[in-house]
């Protein structure tokens, strides 16, 4: 398929799109109801992360730091700062769970997280997420895996109506909600892990800013073991599915690379029809499929003459490139923040693990950019069209409600992209 470039000889990142593992971990913990993410490291990692998500979601973000200082870094194996942090957090709030995740600092000195976790005496899930390895997507996935391994009780029987959805990090709150709704329309009881659709969806409520509000509850996570079916979305979530299956021999698993575009949406519906024996979908779903078909036709002329650069996380690239490709969009370049087995499958002419300096160097290859808000300066300077997607997006409001998935989201996404391409052409001729 694509020509994939993974290794680069560049000694640095210039204008990075890569985000760190601990940040992905924080976000995953924010999908657990009344959780307090606790980042183990110096205070800055936490502060940056808090500001980053606050600006992206326009919501208060709950997070605390173990605030490791230079003296502690030398003397403490993590015991003091973690135990003390939990004590101090619990003086003010009563979280349902502490989500302990590391940064590069304690990992460099080799803190024994597991050992400390056993001494805390408070509900806690720990995960090693050094920021000198992996990225945003893997931080989220490792956390999901840790939540399963450390919380889910093994079970011997299955409830055929219960379904666990494991979404990758780049799915927005409304997208997760829409997948849940579609599956629920087949009579399933769906639980998403993590679940941002009820925590960071941007709803007005009496916010307890000190803790995450909404998301899957700890009790629900503990009892995921009797689900009859597991659906993972995104290559990064395969491992989480694998560990969940170990909790119950009767559980079955289906994997989707992504859920964007007609074919992927069809295959999810096909699966649900097979599983349930239903002979049709709701009239609304049927209608949206027709609208997506129409959107593909209405946008094909514009997209067919547009060369597109897509920038983002690997699992996000897979879906976005596919839906654009299917409507004739020519994805000439996809820039991935990190390496992933997913890159092989991306529908693009060229796939590169890289940064926005690479995007700039390849400026001749595309007319339109789909990417995060760091792409704005680039699009402006190079006079390219722009559709803002992914983390961070500090330029627009309403990010939790951006919906590119399944039949409905696909239709909206194609229209938005085709319109952006037309606007770009109007401006540049």
């Amino acid at each position, binding site marked *: 398929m694509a020509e994939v470039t993974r290794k680069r000889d560049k*000694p*640095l990142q210039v204008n990075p799109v*890569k*985000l*760190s593992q601990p940040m992905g971990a924080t976000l995953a913990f924010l999908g657990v109801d009344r959780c307090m993410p606790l980042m183990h490291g110096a205070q800055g990692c936490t502060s940056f992360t808090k*500001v980053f998500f606050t600006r992206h979601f326009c919501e208060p973000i709950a997070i605390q730091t173990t605030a490791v200082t230079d003296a502690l870094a030398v003397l403490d194996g993590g015991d003091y700062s973690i135990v003390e942090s939990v004590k101090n957090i619990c003086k003010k709030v009563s979280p349902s769970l502490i989500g302990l995740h590391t940064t590069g600092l304690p990992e460099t000195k080799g803190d024994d997280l597991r050992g400390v976790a056993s001494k805390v005496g408070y509900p806690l899930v720990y995960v090693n997420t050094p920021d*000198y390895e992996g990225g945003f997507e893997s931080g989220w996935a490792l956390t999901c895996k840790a939540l399963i391994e450390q919380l889910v009780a093994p079970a011997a029987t299955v409830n055929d109506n219960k379904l666990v959805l494991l979404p990758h990090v780049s799915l927005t709150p409304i997208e997760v909600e829409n997948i849940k709704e579609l599956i629920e329309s087949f009579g399933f009881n769906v639980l998403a892990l993590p679940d941002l659709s009820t925590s960071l969806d941007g709803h007005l409520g009496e916010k307890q800013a000190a803790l995450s509000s909404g998301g899957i509850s700890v009790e629900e996570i503990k009892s995921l073991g009797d689900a009859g079916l597991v659906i993972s979305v995104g290559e990064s979530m395969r491992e989480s599915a694998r560990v969940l299956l170990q909790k119950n021999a009767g559980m079955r698993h289906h994997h989707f690379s992504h859920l964007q575009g007609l074919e992927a949406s069809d295959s999810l519906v096909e699966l649900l029809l097979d599983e349930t024996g239903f002979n049709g979908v709701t009239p609304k779903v049927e209608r949206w499929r027709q609208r997506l078909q129409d959107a593909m036709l209405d946008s094909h002329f514009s997209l067919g003459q547009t060369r597109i650069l897509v920038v983002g996380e690997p699992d996000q690239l897979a879906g976005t490139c596919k839906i654009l490709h299917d409507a004739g969009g020519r994805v000439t370049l996809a820039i991935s923040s990190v390496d992933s087995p997913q890159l092989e499958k991306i529908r693009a002419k060229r796939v590169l693990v890289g940064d926005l300096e690479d995007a700039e160097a390849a400026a001749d290859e595309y007319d339109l950019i789909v990417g995060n808000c760091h792409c704005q300066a680039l699009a402006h300077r190079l006079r390219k069209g722009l559709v803002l997607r992914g983390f961070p997006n500090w330029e627009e409001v309403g990010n939790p409600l951006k919906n590119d998935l399944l039949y409905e989201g696909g239709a909206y996404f194609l229209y938005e992209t085709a319109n952006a391409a037309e606007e770009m052409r109007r401006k540049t001729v």
Partner: protein
Amino acid sequence: MSSKPKIKDLLDESACEHNKKKKQACNAPKPGATTGGCAFEGAQISLFPYADAAHLVHGPITCLGSSWETRATKTTWPGRDLTRMGFTTDVSLNDVIFSGEEKLVKAIDDIMARYSPEAVFVYSTCVTAMIGDDIDLICRQAAAKHGVPMVPVHAPGFVGSKNLGSRLGGEAALRHLIGTLEPETTTPFDINLIGEYNVTGDMWQYKHLLDKLGIRVLATLSGDGRIKDIRCAHRAKLNVIVCAKSLVSLTRKMHEQYGIPSVSLSFYGKRDTSKGLLAIAAALGDPGLVARTEKLVAHEEARLEERLKLYRDVFVDKKAVLNTGGNKTWSIAAALQDLGFEVVATAVKKATEDDRARAREYLGEKGVLMMNPGVEQARLIDEKGAHLLLAGGRSLYTAIKKGIAFADVNQEKKKSYGGYDGLLNLAEDLKNALENPVFKLVARRAPWQK
């Protein structure tokens, strides 16, 4: 010898208000109960606005990946605006085990080849400080090789807070840049602006007034700054500290080393802008300049009053509650008063003793200094009958519950409220907030709750 400044010395700043009393090291952060940025962020804030220099962060991806392009520090630099770029070595596990030095050397070479900046700042971070990468040596060698200053900045996050980091940033500039070049010409009215980062163009709200008065900004640390200028900063007649507690160590040392006196002021609101201009003129000690400044200030104030007339009716008898931190606890309060608001309360939880004293001065005896704003603000809105809450985003719900207008105090990160003209921006935004029906409307009960 290492160019690392002694942290202990920086924490024990004799020019700091609190050190005149009890000897106390600045507080260590408390695990699980700490907010605010780290030393690296502070150093980044103080030095990043140099648009003609590359800022290379030697560390894993969190440090830069989440923070580049977050501050709108504007510049007139005609070349490629390097403040809108992010450079990081993005160290990997391999570098942690075998050292990241080789990568750093190559990264500097790469930056010089592609962007030829006037200088490169190299920031150490927690991980690279811990594995002991020798950024001093690398910077020295790279400076010799490339012929431009290479500035090692030793402010890994774990050494402390954002405030300390800003001091460390200032320290790096003092050690490696200031005094390394002579200006082409000097004037009796050369000043440095210290701690003015030109966020959203704040500096440009008053810079033209300095120009008009014949006061030359020789160098800035670091808003719309140039490396060439800061290297000449030792020839200034006066250091002007703009709203920045953290850089008093730098100006004290410049006083000791180069005999440059300093004044500390704010350009926020009408009164403070006027006071600030007059303080600069007075400190430069020229009677003619003082007279010119008095005239200019009078003219500008009259011009501003004229333009504020539009808003007077809207703001008359309006009461505001302010919930922010640091010098904003009093500087925004003063600006609100300039517009005609009565500031009934301001949060001083995250403010220094000096800030609290100034807040008291502006608010008077009747004003409330909130030590626990999260709890107090809702009650005070009721008790005082406030019409406006000016606070961070998380207080929005309080305003809605109370059915009063809300303005996000962080809007200043998008739009300048500095100087005389910035006050008009603030006036317009507050007028819009007071007139906006949204705060009352969204508080409506749902039909099924009636």
